[in-house]
Each structure stands twice: as structure tokens, then as C-alpha cells.
């Protein structure tokens, strides 16, 4: 990487994070002068001292975002966009953005899949319970028409309701475990992101 690669990459990163153009111009001018003042013979040293364009961009963006937030504490919209800057900035440096997006997408898909499975089992249990209830009522009505058949229907109905009620606590336990698992996974990922924050 040389000086112009660095500046192009920095410009790209700042643009990507929707920093105002005048702020980008100031930063680019600063770093281009920085290279000039260090002299061409020190170009490689400056590059290694500065760190990657992504790291430099993160520092600029997070400081800019904090300044915006402290200047406009009551402006909700500004606050939201500032948080957005920080989130994007955290993504920019440690892991490449595409990987972060892919990881989030996978987790999201797993969470949605899990939730759908839990929901469908719940509906199935509910259906069995309702069927059992209807059969029981039907059997009671049949008592006056055909006793053996009525007993069979009532028995089946009660059995169905019983099965559903017995299964429900076990199912609930599994569902709660799954929800905790997903929540923990998210927590872990957020913590890993936080670890990369810098203190000067």
C-alpha cells in the first residue's frame, strides 16, 4: 500500500459511512498534508504508524459521532444517526463488513427458524387439545344415543386433552432454553464487538 492507496481507501470508508462531504474533505486534506510533511522518504513509516485506513476511519467516525451527540443531545434524529455511525464504525475496523453482515444474517435466520419451529409445535399441541375437547363434548351428547360409542369418543377426547396438557410443560421448557440460547449468542457477539473499542 502506498500513500494514494491509503487516501483513496480512507475516502471510500468515510463516504461509505455517510460522513458529510465537507468533513471528509478536511480529513483527506489533513492526511495528505501529513504525508507531505513527513516527506516521501518516510512514506512507509507513516503508513505503518497510522495503521490501516479502516482504523483511521474508525477513529475519525467515532469522534465525529460523539461530538455530534454531545452538541445535539435533544435532537433524536441526530442522536440516532450518530449511534448508527458508531455501529458502522465498530463494524468497519475489526471484522470486514461483509463477514459481519453474513454472521448477523445467519444468526437471524437461525432465530427465525427456531421461532417458527416452536410456534408450529405450539399450534399442533393446541389443535390436539381442541380436538380432544370437541370429542369429549360430542361424546357427552352421544351418551343418550349410543352408550358404547359415546364412551369410546369421550375416552379418546379426554386422552387427547391429557396428552396435550402433559406435553405442554416439556415443550415450554425446550422453548425457553432455545430463546435463552439465542439471546446469549447475541450477547456474546456484542461483547466481542465491544472488546475492540480503543482507549487512547
Amino acid at each position, binding site marked *: 500500500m502506498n500513500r494514494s492507496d491509503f487516501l483513496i481507501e480512507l475516502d471510500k470508508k468515510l463516504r461509505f459511512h455517510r460522513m458529510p462531504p465537507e468533513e471528509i474533505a478536511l480529513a483527506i486534506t489533513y492526511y495528505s*498534508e501529513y504525508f507531505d*510533511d513527513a516527506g516521501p522518504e518516510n512514506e512507509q513509516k507513516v503508513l505503518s504508524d*497510522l495503521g490501516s485506513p479502516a482504523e*483511521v476511519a474508525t477513529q*475519525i467516525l467515532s*469522534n465525529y459521532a460523539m461530538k455530534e451527540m454531545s452538541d445535539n443531545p435533544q435532537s433524536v434524529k441526530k442522536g440516532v444517526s450518530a449511534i448508527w455511525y458508531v455501529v458502522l464504525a465498530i463494524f468497519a475496523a475489526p471484522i470486514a463488513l461483509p463477514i459481519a453482515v453474513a454472521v448477523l444474517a445467519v444468526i437471524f435466520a437461525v432465530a427465525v427458524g427456531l421461532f417458527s419451529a416452536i410456534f408450529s409445535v405450539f399450534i399442533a399441541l393446541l389443535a390436539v387439545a381442541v380436538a380432544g375437547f370437541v370429542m369429549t363434548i360430542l361424546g357427552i351428547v352421544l351418551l343418550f344415543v349410543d352408550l358404547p360409542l359415546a364412551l369410546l369418543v369421550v375416552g379418546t377426547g379426554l386422552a387427547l386433552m391429557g396428552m396435550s396438557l402433559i406435553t405442554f410443560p416439556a415443550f415450554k421448557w425446550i422453548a425457553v432454553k432455545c430463546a435463552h440460547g439465542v439471546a446469549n449468542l447475541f450477547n456474546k457477539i456484542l461483547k466481542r464487538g465491544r472488546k475492540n473499542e480503543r482507549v*487512547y
Partner: protein
Amino acid sequence: MVFQIGAALLDACVLAVLSKGDAYGYILTQNIKEVVTVSDSTLYPVLRRLEKGDLLESYSQPFEGRNRKYYRITQRGTQQLVQYRIEWNTYAASIEKVLSGGLSHE
């Protein structure tokens, strides 16, 4: 160094260096780096923040056929620096008191 420098202390150092005379980004960074361990990319956000807060102002001067941006401390910056010095003396004195063992837990 095991002790890390915080944002306020870094602001104070930048203001202190500039109170001795105007400077441009590169030389300012080298000066600061002589006393504290900071990354080269730390200074730009600091300068930008101080400039936005009217503690510094900048002007461009031609140099070898290009422009060089100099930073100058403002009236407000000087006042802030005085404040920082007072705060620092209090802070340094109390840390000194603990570390040099003058403080007992009785």
C-alpha cells in the same frame, strides 16, 4: 507506559503544545508522541474536536508550492488550558499523596 492517557488529558497536552506556538499536524503529532504513547491517527480527531469547540483555529500558509494547515490556540483555548492546569495540579497532588504512601487507612 502502563498509564493510559485519557481524552481530556490529551486535549490539555495539545493545547499546552500550541500555547508555545502554532504548529501543523505532522509536527504536532511528533511533539505529542515524544511525551505520551499515542497512535499517529489519534491526533486528527482531537484537533478537529478542539477546532469545532473554538478552542483552536486553523489557517493555511503556502509552503513549497502547497498549503500547510497550521493550528493556533484561541482565547477560549487559553482559558481552558488554565482550567486544565488547575485540575491537573489537584489530580497529580492527590495521586502523589496515595502513591508515595502519605495516606493511611486509620
